């Protein structure tokens, strides 16, 4: 609401105005009172009940006040963005807030007391942003595009640096800039610091412009990896400037090139070392789960500082630390710790980013640093812009010859326009030595102007540009229902065929690496329990079971009592037997929850009860729908809302401010559940009439490879394959065997090696999902849920009681399994 904006504004202004005169006033009276003890010693006339001592808390107070003000600024900015047109990107607005705040401070102080000091920036504000970026980096996407990213990062940055530096020097020599005390080397130094695309700015602007994920990862990856080049170039030219022109010969230059290799690879290697350290740490922190989340931040920061200490690329170090550790850390840590880390990361990163932009604005309001040289500044802007475009198009043209999926024209335009400079450039400029580089202020001013130009102006125009370029192609007309349905169907078809073709990057190297990683690296870095849990499909089952358990209980409570929980004995798929020993210890939750329900073996079928109750439920909910005539609008609306989205429509998952399960993941789970169920059904229909084998083979506790439900090895293939990133453990599919084949062949000779000993024809009649669901038609949801509740729940959750409890084999199994939960339960 508008009032809240004004309130925020008032608060901010009040705070700053209040604090500043206070500081000023107090700092002016340094002589009077220094600290409490002193005061007590000097002017004591009586016992002071309360004293006011500013200097005692000055430093931390100022820090906290600025953090607080930055937070308020962000709040203000977000409110503005909601109510005013969503035109200026957040980062731009924050910079402008910084201008205002800087103006206030300057007005009070006549000097800019709060600047963005390079050490503050590089030590306290930058590391967490990079850590956040790398921790949430979509690894598969990153590595599959790594080649292109490296080309852009290395050659692109070198190209930018050299061309900008040389062109400026050329113009200087041509006399356009008037008289400056600058030489070629200093121009090159300037070029190198202004050349780098900034990760903070890129995230900030691109997040609001939803581009496709490949484009995003290219720009973003480039912005992260070019730090290696930037650091090297900066240090090399800085040293050259110090050495002076004459002392530079081939040896020095080759040393410069060699230092690139050392810095870049050294930094990355150091990051990987710290990632290994971190993974090993989290592997052992079972007993200090309460603080294991903190280790991520501590070790990440250590990686940064260590690399900086050794003059290696600190950003690369943190980047690779985050990238490499994410998988193992997430697997090893307790779920709550994982959540804590994710939330805390976002808080820190967002906070730092806000502070950086605000301070970038504040720093501008300082008369001391501004040196205006029209030629220099305008030419810099021009060259930075033009050479970025040329560089991107040139490199893309070369890359497209090798890439499987070429980068389109519009993507190239966005990429070149998205070459934003940010605080890193400013930090490097501020670190220049005034003595060696007399024109430091000019460089600083120019850098600031370039940063403002790219972040604000290019940020503002980025979204309209993207929309304009895309809209030019597609003609928007109202689609008919059939077109909509078919469009979506085509999306799904394409996604499926892409998966069948193996998509990009699925080749021998990827598979080889995955095998190596599964067998050796995971063994070293992941907790054994977590390794077993890697099966993606299993984790979905786990989640679904939990969901069903919750639904089931809440439904039962609504019914008034849980008396009808007792189900019949048709536990055909004994989940526990299949996953049994390996998984009981990782599913303690379900074990514990279900232990409250003494599930006896009773013979009456509950399904009739459920079926009676559900229809009334559905009638209530959907009654009015039946009454309303379904007209066109409704149909379109329904389609819009409920059509499953295909992979194309899923947003790219990296975002600064949002993370976690979004709609698409729920949909995916739903689709998966249905597919599995339909496969299971078709398998079961095939199984009907085949006499069950009487033998129950003992379920061995082996590794999760090639295990059939009852220890019966089957060579006819597996349901869940070991595609790209699924683990070896993925072959413990719930349903194995030939059922898929059954779906597609009619009456061909089917062999059913998978044995479900409990199955015999009498029980089929009571299987709810195999029964004809006619008569009352419950809502689809209820229908689907039906099998998942009483009977199914037993099936899929590792119940301690199996149906044939009199079977000695099973009893033996039971004993063993029951032991495990106690020992492993955390």
């Amino acid at each position, binding site marked *: 609401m508008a009032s809240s904006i004004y309130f925020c504004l008032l608060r901010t202004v009040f705070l700053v105005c209040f604090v500043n005169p206070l500081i000023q006033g107090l700092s002016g009276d340094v002589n009077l009172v220094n600290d409490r003890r002193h005061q007590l010693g000097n002017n004591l006339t009586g016992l002071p009940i309360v004293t006011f001592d500013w200097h005692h808390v000055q430093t931390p107070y100022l820090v906290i006040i600025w953090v607080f003000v930055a937070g308020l600024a962000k709040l203000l900015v977000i409110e503005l963005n909601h109510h005013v047109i969503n035109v200026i990107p957040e980062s731009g607005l924050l910079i402008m807030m910084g201008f205002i705040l800087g103006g206030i401070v300057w007005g009070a102080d006549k000097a800019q007391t709060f600047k963005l000091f390079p050490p503050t920036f590089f030590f306290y504000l930058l590391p967490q942003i990079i850590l956040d970026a790398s921790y949430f980096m979509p690894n598969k996407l990153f590595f599959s595009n790594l080649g292109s990213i490296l080309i852009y990062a290395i050659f692109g940055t070198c190209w930018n640096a050299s061309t900008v530096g040389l062109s400026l020097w050329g113009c200087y020599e041509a006399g356009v800039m008037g008289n400056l005390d600058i030489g070629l080397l200093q121009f090159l130094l300037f070029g190198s610091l202004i050349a780098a695309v900034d990760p903070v700015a890129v995230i900030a602007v691109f997040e609001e412009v939803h581009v496709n994920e490949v484009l995003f990862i290219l720009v973003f990856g480039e912005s992260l990896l070019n730090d290696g080049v930037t650091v090297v170039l900066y240090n090399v030219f800085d040293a050259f400037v110090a050495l002076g022109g004459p002392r530079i010969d081939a040896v020095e230059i080759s040393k410069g090139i060699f230092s690139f290799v050392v810095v870049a690879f050294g930094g990355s290697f150091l990051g990987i070392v710290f990632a290994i350290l971190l993974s090993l740490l989290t592997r052992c922190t079972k007993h200090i789960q309460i603080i294991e989340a903190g280790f991520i931040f501590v070790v990440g920061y250590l990686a940064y500082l260590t690399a900086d200490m050794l003059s290696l690329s600190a950003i690369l170090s943190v980047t690779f630390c985050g990238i490499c550790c994410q998988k193992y850390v997430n697997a090893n840590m307790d779920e709550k710790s994982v959540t804590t880390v994710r939330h805390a990361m976002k808080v820190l990163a967002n906070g730092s980013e806000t502070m950086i932009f605000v301070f970038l604005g504040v720093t501008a309001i300082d008369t001391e640093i501004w040196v205006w040289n029209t030629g220099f500044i305008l030419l810099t802007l021009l060259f930075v812009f033009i050479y970025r475009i040329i560089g991107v198009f040139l490199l893309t043209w070369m890359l497209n010859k090798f890439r499987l999926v070429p980068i389109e024209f519009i993507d190239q335009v966005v990429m070149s326009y998205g070459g934003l400079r940010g605080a890193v450039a400013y930090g490097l400029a501020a670190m220049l030595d005034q003595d060696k580089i007399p024109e430091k202020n000019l460089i600083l001013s120019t850098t600031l102007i370039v940063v403002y130009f790219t972040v604000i102006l290019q940020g503002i125009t980025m979204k309209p540009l993207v929309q304009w370029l895309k809209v030019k192609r597609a003609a928007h007309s109202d689609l008919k229902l059939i077109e909509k349905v078919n469009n979506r169907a085509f999306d799904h078809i394409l996604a499926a065929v892409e998966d069948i073709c193996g998509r990009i990057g699925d080749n021998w190297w990827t598979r080889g690496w995955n095998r190596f990683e599964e067998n050796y690296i995971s063994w070293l870095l992941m907790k054994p329990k977590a390794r077993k849990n890697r099966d993606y499909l299993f984790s979905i089952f786990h989640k679904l079971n939990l969901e069903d358990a919750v639904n089931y209980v809440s439904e039962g409570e609504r019914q008034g009592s849980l008396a009808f929980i007792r189900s019949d004995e048709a536990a055909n798929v004994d989940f526990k037997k299949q996953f049994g020993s390996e998984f009981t210890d990782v599913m303690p939750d379900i074990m514990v929850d279900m232990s409250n329900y003494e599930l006896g073996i009773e013979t009456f079928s509950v399904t009739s009860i459920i079926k009676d109750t559900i229809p009334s439920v559905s009638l209530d909910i959907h009654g009015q729908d039946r009454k309303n005539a379904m007209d066109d609008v409704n149909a379109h609306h329904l389609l819009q809302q409920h059509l499953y989205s295909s992979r194309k429509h899923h947003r790219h998952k990296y975002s600064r401010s949002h993370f976690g399960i979004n709609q698409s993941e729920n949909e995916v789970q739903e689709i998966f559940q249905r597919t599995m169920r339909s496969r299971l059904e078709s398998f079961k229909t095939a199984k009907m009439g085949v006499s069950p084998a009487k033998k129950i083979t003992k379920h061995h506790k082996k590794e999760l490879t090639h295990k059939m439900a009852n220890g019966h090895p089957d060579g006819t293939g597996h349901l*869940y394959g070991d595609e790209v990133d699924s683990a070896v453990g993925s072959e413990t599919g719930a349903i194995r065997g030939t059922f898929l084949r059954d779906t597609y062949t009619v009456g061909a000779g089917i062999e059913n090696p998978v044995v479900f000993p409990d199955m015999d024809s009498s029980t089929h009649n009571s299987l709810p999902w195999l029964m004809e669901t006619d008569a009352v038609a419950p809502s689809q949801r209820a229908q689907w849920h039906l099998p998942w509740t009483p009977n199914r729940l037993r099936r899929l959750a590792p119940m301690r009681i199996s149906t044939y409890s009199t079977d000695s084999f099973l009893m033996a199994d039971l004993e063993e399994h029951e032991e495990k939960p106690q020992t492993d339960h955390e």
Partner: protein
Amino acid sequence: MGSTSSTLLKIPNAEVLMQETGFSPAHIIRLHDRFKALDKEGRGYLCPQDFGAIKELAMNPIGDRIIGAFFSPGKETVDFSTFVKILAHFRPVDKDRPKEPNSPEPINSRSNKLKFAFQLYDQDKDGKISRDELLKVLRAMLGMQVTEEQLESIADRTIQEADLDRDEAISFEEFRKSLEKVNIDHKMSIRFLR
């Protein structure tokens, strides 16, 4: 390249395949590698389980149908040439292909792409998409919150829009006509199969 041609020789009927489908040698080789990767037991053909092993397909609402499309009616296996021919449907259309009046339509023509899509709907292969078949597809693609009645209503409306001869079913011609405005070339092509 030398390695390409030698690898190409190992693939049966490579020449014929390239001719029929229009794939380049590099693509044939890549697809062959993929075929071998899917065919884990090295039998030289694929069965439904091999497709089922692709985890992402389980998360596609019509994944199982698409798997079915690879298998000709009655056959349980897919050999390499069938595999390639079906995938050829998804090649981007060659815009600059000379129009020879006598040569058969290329597999990736607009019409053939549509036929492939039509087959996905028309499971009983009677040349028409009946109301039931449409219902099944819609059911697969819509979330579980949609009730049966709503579903039937959507199906009815959809058939109404497309059905010109009022026979409560959509024939291939009607299907094609209803998708006139849709850019099939774009929607049913995979870039990296060019």
